[in-house]
């Protein structure tokens, strides 16, 4: 067991998968000689060579398109977006080419598109976004967004071994802030399974990514007030682990969803609908959402702090719901 950062866990997953399977290759902007904008891919080129670690032009469409083409010959490319905000540039390749390929003509596309996302680092409107929901709306894709080093490594390995296009979001706020002891040997975490991070009887709090840590802190505070929160970390947004959510709700009868993504069209709305359709008569209160504002991500610190949900927001909503 070694103490590693979130970032190091991802690097280990890439390294170990490339070591295990020569079909795994990496491509992206500045990932080779430079080792990536965040140094996630540092050392890969030296170990695996120019053919397997490809520095590309600034061409997101070409990066994803080439990854799709490589996958048709049986490779398992991992494409890096320097920032996940830039994934908008290759939206078509992902949603129309990769996502529909297997359904339309039976050609699987085993690629991973990974990269840093999320705010809290004063990156401004184009280096802080959470664009996951554009893709959760696209059948054929899988969308993963881990919260801990252990999960990041295990989920990335599963993503690389999966036969479908997987979008792997890495919250950059966690890269060097979160450390965890993880096993040295090979392990995977299955896609599509949420994890109960804390058990509680009073209300269910569903969240993912960096907000898991915000919510754990809020849960500590709420416990001191006698409110026991059951905290679910989704880990995978598509496919969504409906059963874990419904099971917890049937126990606590109240639901709060927290995400760093903006509110309208965020996954909280989908989860609320899921619960209303499947467990309406288990609800003992309204379903509440705590999310970022429906605005672009602003740059200046006081603005961004206002934009992002925080511990206080979560505690206040949970309290209100518990009292209901």
């Amino acid at each position, binding site marked *: 067991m070694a103490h590693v950062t979130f970032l190091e866990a991802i690097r280990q997953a890439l390294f170990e998968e490339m070591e295990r399977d020569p079909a795994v290759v990496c491509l992206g902007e500045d990932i080779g000689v430079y080792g990536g904008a965040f140094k996630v891919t540092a050392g890969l080129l030296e170990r695996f*060579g120019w053919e397997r670690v490809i520095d590309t032009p600034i061409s997101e469409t070409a990066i994803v398109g080439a990854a799709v083409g490589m996958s048709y010959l049986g490779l398992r490319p991992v494409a890096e977006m320097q920032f996940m905000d830039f994934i908008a540039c290759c939206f078509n390749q992902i949603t129309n080419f990769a996502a529909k390929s297997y359904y339309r003509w039976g050609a699987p596309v085993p690629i991973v598109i990974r990269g840093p996302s999320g705010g809290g680092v004063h990156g401004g409107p184009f280096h802080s976004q959470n664009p996951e929901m554009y893709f959760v709306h696209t059948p054929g894709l899988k969308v993963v967004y881990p919260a801990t080093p252990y999960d990041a490594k295990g989920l990335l390995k599963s993503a690389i071994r999966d036969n479908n296009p997987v979008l792997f979001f890495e919250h950059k706020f966690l890269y060097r802030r979160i450390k965890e002891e993880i096993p040295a040997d090979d392990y995977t975490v299955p896609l599509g399974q949420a994890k109960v991070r804390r058990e509680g009887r009073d209300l269910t709090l569903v969240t993912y990514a960096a907000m898991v840590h915000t919510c754990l802190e809020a849960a500590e505070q709420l416990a001191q007030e006698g409110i026991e929160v059951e905290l679910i970390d989704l880990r995978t947004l598509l496919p969504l682990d409906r059963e874990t959510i419904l099971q917890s709700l049937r126990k606590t009868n109240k639901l709060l969803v927290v995400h760093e993504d903006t509110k309208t069209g965020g996954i909280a709305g989908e989860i609320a609908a899921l619960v209303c359709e499947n467990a309406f008569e288990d609800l003992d209160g309204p379903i509440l959402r705590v999310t970022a504002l429906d605005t672009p991500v602003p740059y200046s610190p006081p603005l961004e702090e206002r934009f992002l949900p925080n511990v206080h927001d979560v505690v206040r909503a949970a309290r209100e719901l518990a009292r209901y």
Partner: protein
Amino acid sequence: MKISLRREQYLELYYYMRLNRSLEERLVTLFRQNKVVGGLYSSLGQEATSVGTAYALEKRDWMAPMIRNVGALLVKGYRPRDIFLQYMARYDSPTHGKDGTSHFGDLKERHVISPISMLGDLIPVMTGVAIAGRYLGQNIVAMTWIGDGGTSTGAFHEGMNFAATQRAPFVCVVENNQWAYSTPVRRQVPIRNLADRARAYGITSYIVDGNDVVAVYRVAKEAVERCRAGEGPILIEAKTMRMKGHAQHDPAEYVPREMFEYWQARDPIARYETFLSRQGLWTEQEKQQILDRIEREIAEDLAFAENSPFPPPELAEQGVYCEDAYEIKPEWQRPIEEVMPPKASVQAVWQVEDFGGIAEGAVQVIEAAAAPARDGTGRRQVARTPQRGKKKLSARGKGR
């Protein structure tokens, strides 16, 4: 490069072109009988380009057709029934009714990749195919087609540029059929020769009479072999003409009549028939045999297609994700020891050829070469369709 064809190959080229055309003629009938589900796209007039280029590929090579490359699909081993079934949306079609037209492919046998409707996206995808083939030691070439309009997309540029930086064994055939839906090529691109774009990517290009199947084949064969030899990607511009509208619903009234007449006189099949006869490459009897064979094959395949059921509705819900049990295995044709176990031998340092400057205080002017006139008509086009043609064009524009 000396490229010659055997007599039976000459006849095979004819067979594929003629099959392409007869098949599409039959599709028009089916469309009018309401048996085609959705739109119908014609490659009338472009058969030589599709067939001649695809004919230069080997079995191991990969291709991705566009909507007007039925001829290429036939050359790569698909049969008329596949195309009938696709257009008629039947269960036995290659996509089981999940997609139509030429939107199908085959990773295992024919090495054909399905296009999507968004133009340009195949360029980076085929670049990836070419890079992967090289990495696996397969010595393959990847080929795709794009229209004059499709070269305006960002994906085209990103893909060509990436292919060039990677020196990928990739042949991009630009089918300049003069019209992007209703917009003439000159409104898409302000240069006369689309092949000029290759220079900006630092790659080799060819321009060929797209209605001469032998010329097209020779150029494509040379390009494919140069790619295979490691010379990097090559762009071929084939000058041809879309002799119908964008699809069946489009009567193409925006095309000057003289332009159709000009190209009608250069019909690739009629020209090739004359060529075969003049060169004494076939007898009237052999020609008739080919025509009879095509008629028979089309009749048989159409009967099959018409008897194929529509897909069961529940199929709509199936096959969104590829299950874990599906095994994906690359075909290694180089010693695996070359890549496994990985060797720590790379020094992660860029080799920089020069420092990128220009002579101190220097200024260089690069004039637009052969730039078209400001009114948007090229020199030669003015000669053929003078002002008169232009007026007619707007007169037919139905209020535009």
